[in-house]
């Protein structure tokens, strides 16, 4: 394939008019994705965006790549078929909290477990947008919505904890408007072989405005989030004066202040993205006592589904040699009837 000249983010924008509500967090994500693809030198002809149903799932229409807007919740299954047939393609799945964790939870679970080489971006806005504002499986208890006028009562699912439980090998988080952070996370996800799962905190300005403001809003972001990086100490805060440690008396994280109680930077826990137990603890962190972890929380290498399949196929072909269909359908008992139409006597007993 002739490599095109380096494309700009604009070259990844389709000619279709973008139809999200003005001010929707999806615009920022679209911009971030287009920038990422330009920066990694993606080829639009080998890039596919697959989505389900919901506001986020309109995403493929706005990309000048291949795109498939499918049915509610099923994008991971369709993307799996695409990737298995043509492993050379770069396959991105766009889903939301309703699409990916409610109606399509099963497919998300199995895509992660199988380690199909997909980049799954889950836009979490903790609400159903396209169907006009019902509570979603990630909504906080007590969420008032047209379908829960007295407040929701069920426990929400944590997308990243779900992904970890499904044996996801790449789990990351970012924020729609965090334009410095989002492309970096996407680049890591793209570079990772296997299923990459990215939860993006996305603001639905119409039905759930400001739901993540306590940590995602620009003015508090540095204080209330922690950008985790493999091999670096888990430090956060505007003054970078806070860090995470493991409480030696209980198996849990605590927030400590550097320079207080004799704590120095060297006492701070170093992020190890290969440690699923740490990942679990980082995922569970929420304000006001803890910062929200963003960045690549968990990443371990491993054989992808397609790699394992190809390796197995090579072995099978080595054993079978050049396959011959005519002999395949003649395995077992075969008998011949002669020209005269008469059957030969069967073998003597």
């Amino acid at each position, binding site marked *: *394939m*002739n490599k095109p000249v380096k494309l700009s983010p604009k070259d990844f924008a*389709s000619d*279709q008019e973008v139809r999200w509500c003005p001010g929707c967090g999806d615009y920022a994500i679209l911009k971030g994705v287009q920038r990422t693809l330009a920066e990694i030198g993606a080829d*639009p*002809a*080998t*890039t*596919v965006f697959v989505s389900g149903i919901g506001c986020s799932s309109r995403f*493929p*229409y706005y990309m*000048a790549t*291949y*795109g*498939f*807007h*499918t*049915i509610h919740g*099923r994008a991971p*299954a*369709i*993307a*799996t*078929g*695409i*990737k*298995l*047939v*043509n492993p*050379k*393609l770069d396959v991105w799945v766009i889903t939301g909290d309703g699409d990916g964790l409610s109606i399509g939870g*099963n*497919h998300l*679970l*199995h895509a992660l477990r199988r380690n199909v080489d997909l980049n799954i971006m889950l836009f979490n806005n903790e609400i159903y947008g396209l169907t006009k504002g019902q509570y979603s499986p990630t909504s906080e208890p007590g969420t008032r919505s047209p379908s829960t006028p007295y407040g929701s009562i069920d426990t929400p699912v944590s997308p990243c904890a779900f992904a970890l439980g499904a044996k996801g090998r790449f789990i990351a988080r970012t924020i729609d408007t965090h334009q410095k952070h989002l492309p970096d996370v996407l680049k890591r996800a793209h570079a990772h072989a296997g299923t990459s799962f990215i939860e993006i905190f996305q603001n639905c300005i119409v039905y759930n405005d400001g739901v993540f403001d306590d940590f995602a809003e620009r003015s508090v972001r540095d204080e209330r989030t922690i950008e985790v990086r493999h091999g670096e100490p888990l430090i956060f805060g505007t003054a970078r004066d806070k860090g995470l440690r493991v409480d030696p008396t209980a198996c849990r994280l605590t927030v400590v202040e550097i320079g207080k109680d004799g704590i120095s930077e060297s006492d701070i826990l170093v992020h190890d993205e290969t440690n699923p137990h740490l990942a679990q603890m980082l995922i569970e962190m929420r304000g006001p006592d803890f910062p929200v972890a963003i960045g690549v929380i968990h990443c371990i290498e491993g054989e992808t589904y397609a790699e394992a*399949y190809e390796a197995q*196929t090579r072995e*099978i*072909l080595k054993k079978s040699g050049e*396959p011959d*269909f*005519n002999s*395949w*359908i*003649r395995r*077992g*008992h*075969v*008998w*011949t*009837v002669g020209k*005269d*139409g008469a*059957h*030969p*006597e*069967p*073998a*003597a*007993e």
Partner: protein
Amino acid sequence: MDTSIPSSELEALDRVVVRFAGDSGDGIQLTGTQFASATALAGNDLATFPDYPAEIRAPAGTTFGVSAYQIQFGAGSVLTAGDEPDVLVALNPAALKVNLPAMREGALIIIDKGSFTPRNLQKAGFESNPLDDDTLTKYQVLALDISKLTLDAVDPFGLSKKEALRCKNMWTLGLMLWMFTRPRKPVIDWLTNKFAKNPVVRDANIAALNAGHAFGETAELGFHLPRYRIAPARVEPGEYRTVTGSQAIAWGIAAAGLKAGLKVFFGSYPITPASPILHELARMRMFNIETFQAEDEIAAICSAIGASYAGAIGVTSSSGPGIALKTEALGLAISVELPLVVINSQRGGPSTGLPTKTEQSDLYQAIFGRNGDAPMVVLAAATPGDCFDTAIEATRIALEHMVPVMLLTDGYIANAAEPWRIPDIDDIPPIANHKPAAGEITPPFNPFRRDPETLARPWVTPGMPELMHRIGGLEKSAETGNISYDPANHQKMTELRHEKVERVARFIPPQKVSHGDETGDLVVVGWGSTYGAIDQAVRLARSEGLKVSHIHLRHLFPLPANLGELLAGFDRVLVPELNMGQLATLLRDRYLLPVRQLNKVAGQPFKVREVLEAIHEAVAQDAPKAAE
């Protein structure tokens, strides 16, 4: 075969129906298939009917745990497993209880009296031992202690009693092979292969088989053991084997992939009775076939749609309840106009219904069962061997017309075996598709630009340079392929999708009369696995001098272009179906004909007699006037 036996000692038969029955744990299905295999090798035509419970290990000795395998074989053409068995092998009381009502007077019943213990009799619901009372006076009964004879035969191998008794089916098979002068060698070969890793079990089974055979040869029972010879059938020259519908479907799909020069991607979720297709294809990876056991029925079809989108032949397979789950995704495939083959091995419904029993009740589902105006091509296979050709035909239509195609089979032909003239892959014509050659289409392009003949859209797959585009389940503009909510455009696209499916009728062969003349008093119209019963009934009716013909449909949607004209040549139309009248509705609607129905939903195939009676009734009545 013992050709040394003076033929005077052999009773020559034209055809015979044997039914093996026993507990699910008795290995009845294996016994039946091995007997069928030996029978095929002996040159008879044959048809089989495996009939087993839905439970994997139903409680031993109960009537609902009875497994049976019926086979009809003969010197002439055999198309059904037979109405009534001539010989019943009952390996326990429950098997006798369940199968006795199906036996004709005078039939031979071979019984393992060793299993007729008070406890087993009670479990089967016998108040007294039928061997002692007058239950069996109408039949010829051969009661042997097969359990004990088996234990004696395998005694030298040191098996536990439980293991030893599991050889009972081979002892019985040995006796039956002797009785019908079938060769033992194929069974011995099969045992040798199957138990290669367990020589003791292998040798015990072979010993049991030989002992059963020797028993027939030497038994001094004080009465004459019958022995039969059925002359080989005269059939077209060529190479033959036995094949089940599931095998033939799998091979047909594989052959279609080779003929199209494309990868086959088979996404499936286990379900009775469709799973054997998945199992066979899973072994055939070297033929560029990728099978994928999905997490559910929806993912199975969705992965296949993804595969088709990416340029492979997407295939999915299930049975009625699973097809119901795939419905929304089928709508997507219809809307984005991708090739797809969907196989439905029908079973008794509704809901979970009768998982292991046969029915033809998903025709409405296949033709109408989707939201929106969502037409799709529907085909049905008639016999196990026909599954091969129909699978190729389904794939050909999917690729050449860029449409999803539903292929219907059912539990009966999926499991039944018949002798099959093995085709040569080189004789099968190639299958074309709509992938553009490099540079054939240049941007800006409309993914819904259509072939003027078939109305198929181009199959542009990700990876093709310059032709990036977006498709989806929202309505698309006929002119650009972009999302369009325009009312006139939706009208146009809906009509185009209909027209595209209707046009398939221009490319399929005209309907032929399967048997009989092109005009007459009555035409019996069938589809699917009822082929054999209808064919036999029509032949019998014609031999009685009735002016009856048989038309059997492979193409159910769209119907063949000449079908209306053909039907007009007959005074009456009779449609026998294993449902409440689904094809009958279609034909009435399409041709405004007063169609008579014969409907059976008992989980069992038609008996020839049932169809013949319906023919008699139909011709006895006044020919109806044309529809008012």
